[in-house]
């Protein structure tokens, strides 16, 4: 197996852990914010280094050369491959942007230590290929939001109920997976349990209420960081995808599709901004699951492209909403707020990221959505049409929310609501990624296609034609 030139993975995971320890003993919240920003920034650099190094290696997978894991005999468990290589910088970017845009009004209530700890856990999850360690990390990952809910004296029952179900199903399912499990000899019951667990974590209908409850009760930043990395989708790819037959995956896709359409419809009728965001996100993340479960090269490529585009655009969308909330308090979508003249930057970001997430032409999501729909139509034509309907509904919901938050009236502010430099930087990063990825999508699509064909090869390679394998090999 190829080795990185530097221990990128170890550094990317260790950095936020050390940062969390340092921040937890700090009394000054302002200083804690600065240290957190620096930690997340350096972690992002390490994650980007990992991606660049991986691209230079021209390999299907790689691990650290001088890694810490070797001490614990874990060096074969934490491996970067085509799938996870860009997900690590994406995860690091999510944390960096969220921490960077946390305004002073929020730093007293946003736990930086828990956030950095969560980042370390997330990066470890995304770099891990060993099922039991992934499950362990996923379990650890649900703890920080629970601690925050407890600290805020909010009811944790909805969250605990769903997460217990998620953990229980994953653990039992993995126990039932035998060593000989494969696509040709699928452990059906184990596959069902694992799928159910991962789908609950992804917020599948009708067991999705924990997500809206979390957005309602936790801080926006924590909720955003818990759902946007889409750990449930990652669990499906790592735990279910290698052992589930195509017919099973494609049947599950229908459940995801129902969720996508249902959540899009729910987003249209929401009167509270966070719940609106939650349903828009849920709809998009379910569309990704639809593509992943198609298990065809084109559908899977589309899903992996949309994974990245939705990760970036929904992060930007959520951060724009969070920044507005930081200035005004919680927003109702029943009336108009007319904030455009005060925060045109945030308004433009809100619209751009919202449109990018629905795959608007010229943005990063456009080609991914086209591929996803194309892949879905190949398998079940009606599914492709329903995907189109879901994106149409999401489009209406996004513009409706934009109009309600930023237009419709003239807002008189008693204090300046203009963007802070940190927000401006984040906005510009998002814009570059969204427009850049939209204007020049070919490298990203090719990279995701390689990841898709590698994943399909893991399943027994019956979906990959010899011609594709040959092409794949020659390109490597």
């Amino acid at each position, binding site marked *: 197996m190829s080795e990185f030139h530097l221990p990128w993975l170890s550094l990317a995971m260790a950095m936020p852990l050390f940062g969390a320890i340092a921040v937890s003993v700090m009394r000054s919240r302002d200083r804690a914010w600065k240290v957190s920003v620096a930690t997340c920034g350096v972690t992002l650099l390490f994650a980007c280094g990992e991606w660049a190094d991986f691209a230079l290696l021209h390999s299907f997978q790689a691990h650290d050369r001088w890694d810490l894991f070797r001490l614990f005999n874990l060096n074969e468990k934490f491996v970067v491959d085509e799938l996870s290589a860009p997900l690590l910088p994406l995860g690091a970017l999510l944390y960096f942007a969220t921490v960077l845009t946390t305004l002073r009004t929020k730093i007293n209530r946003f736990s930086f230590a828990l956030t950095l700890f969560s980042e370390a856990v997330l990066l470890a999850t995304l770099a891990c290929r060993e099922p039991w360690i992934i499950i362990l990390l996923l379990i650890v990952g649900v703890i920080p939001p629970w601690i925050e809910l407890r600290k805020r004296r909010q009811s944790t029952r909805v969250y605990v109920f769903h997460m217990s179900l998620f953990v229980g199903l994953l653990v039992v399912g993995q126990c039932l997976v035998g060593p000989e499990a494969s696509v040709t000899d699928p452990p059906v019951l184990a596959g069902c349990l694992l799928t159910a667990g991962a789908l609950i974590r992804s917020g599948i209908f009708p067991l999705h209420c924990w997500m809206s409850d979390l957005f309602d*009760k936790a801080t926006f930043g924590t909720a955003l960081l818990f759902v946007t990395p889409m750990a449930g989708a990652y669990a499906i790819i790592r735990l279910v995808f290698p052992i589930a037959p195509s017919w099973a995956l494609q049947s599950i896709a229908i459940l995801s599709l129902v969720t996508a359409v249902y959540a899009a419809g729910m987003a249209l009728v929401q009167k509270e901004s966070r719940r609106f965001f939650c349903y828009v996100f849920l709809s998009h993340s379910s569309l990704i699951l639809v593509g992943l479960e198609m298990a065809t090269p084109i559908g899977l490529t589309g899903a992996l492209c949309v994974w990245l585009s939705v990760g970036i655009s929904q992060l930007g969308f959520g951060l724009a909403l969070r920044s507005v909330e930081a200035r005004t308090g919680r927003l109702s979508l029943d009336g108009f707020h007319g904030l455009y003249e005060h925060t045109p930057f945030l308004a433009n970001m809100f619209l751009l990221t919202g449109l990018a997430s629905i795959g608007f032409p010229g943005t990063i999501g456009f080609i991914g959505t086209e591929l996803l729909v*194309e892949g879905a139509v190949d398998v079940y034509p009606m599914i492709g049409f329903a995907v189109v309907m879901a994106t149409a509904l999401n489009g209406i919901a996004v513009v409706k929310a934009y109009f309600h938050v930023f237009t419709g009236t003239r807002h008189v502010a008693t204090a300046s609501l203009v963007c802070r430099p940190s927000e401006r930087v984040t906005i510009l990063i998002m814009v570059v990624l969204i427009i850049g990825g939209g204007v020049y*999508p070919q490298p990203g699509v090719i990279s995701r296609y390689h990841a898709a064909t590698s994943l399909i090869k893991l399943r027994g390679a019956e979906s990959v034609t010899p011609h594709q394998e040959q092409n794949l090999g020659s390109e490597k």
Partner: protein
Amino acid sequence: MTVESVLYILGVVVVASPTILLSSLGLPLLMGLHLSEATQSKLTKGAVVAGFLASVCILGVMLVSGLRHVPIEFGNWVSLSQEHFHFHLKFVFDRLSVPFVILTFVLCGTVGAFASVYLHRDRGYRRFFLLYALFLLGMVVSSLAGTIETLFFGWELVGLSSALLVAYFHERPAPVRNGLRVWATYRIADAAFLIAALAMHHLTGAGDFDGLMGSGPWPYGEAAIGSTSALVVGLLLLLAAAGKSGMVPFSGWIPRAMEGPTPSSAVFYGALSVHLGVFLLLRVSPLLDVSIPLRIAVVMLGITSAVFGAIASRAQCDVKNALAFASLTQVGIITVEIGLGLRYVALIHMIGHACLRTLQLLRAPSVLKDYRMLENAVGMHLSGDTVDKSVSISPSRIWLYRFAMERGFLDALLNRWIAHPFTSLFRFCDSMEKRWTDLLSGGDSHGADRLAPYGDSLEDVE
């Protein structure tokens, strides 16, 4: 230098000019830089003139050389050759696209010049010209698209810019609500378009119009699909065209769109945007030759829209709305012409109508002002506003008047039978979810509903 290379360079200029305009207006906005009104006006003028001259030159070269179909290839934007997935960027200059793109530059140029004066020192000047650039790019891409995906690309840009321009005066709720209505209608049309594009892809294996409509230059191509397939795809495209051109039953958005400033109303809804749907029908007109039921559907929709537009326009009480429905009448007639196979007649009718309507809409505000000035000078009403009470009006005429005044009750019907059941269903689901989470929480789970924004405290939930 060969004719092909000259045409290629000119084609690049036509497509690049609105792209550069959009970038030069958009990037400074994102960077927080403020361009002056004069700079924006000059950039707009330069881009429109460059695009216009290049397209006229292409027309000249085509006429001199006798070429009728000039494809300009930009290669694959995205390609997965192993999966036979290509997003091909191809623009076609032919007898349909060249007149339409020249029309686009002429009308957009006129309106741009008008708007730079009309919106002078308006707070939304920059926003207007950015959206204008987006619209121009969308129109140019739609007009010249050589593949259905490229057409969809331009189609979406036109839709977004139109909806945001309807809501241009965004400090009032009415324009915003109307903008949202326009956007919702467009999204339905877009969904139909995308499904039709996917269906075409599956039927022909490519999104290229040449593959779909045969190799002959427009309008002599022959559709390469069976009559049943043509009917299904054609009906979806007809739905998309009806939404975009505001035909029955989607006509409600046209008068609503008049909430935008006069220049945008003129070019977007009176002249160009409203013709994009019929342009689509013209582009895929070989499909109509394959399916008689499809042709009948097109003609019926056209007749219905024309008659409805004629009735509704006679009862409107403001000039913009009257012109909007008059536009609908003409669009309906153009659709009938397309259905009857009179493609050149439809194209000429479309160009003539677009120019006339732009002139009318741009002149409408000042003609009213002139009229009032004249009345003030004369000291009396010129029309002699007298009502002849002796004429009896039959109940059917009263009903017809009410029907016209209420714009055929179409908005109310769509609200009642489509929008309301849809939102009611999801509101019911929302209330069920609340009950479920209340049950799990053992109390009220939607605490955020009680919080009001702009309070003294910036804390969200305690």
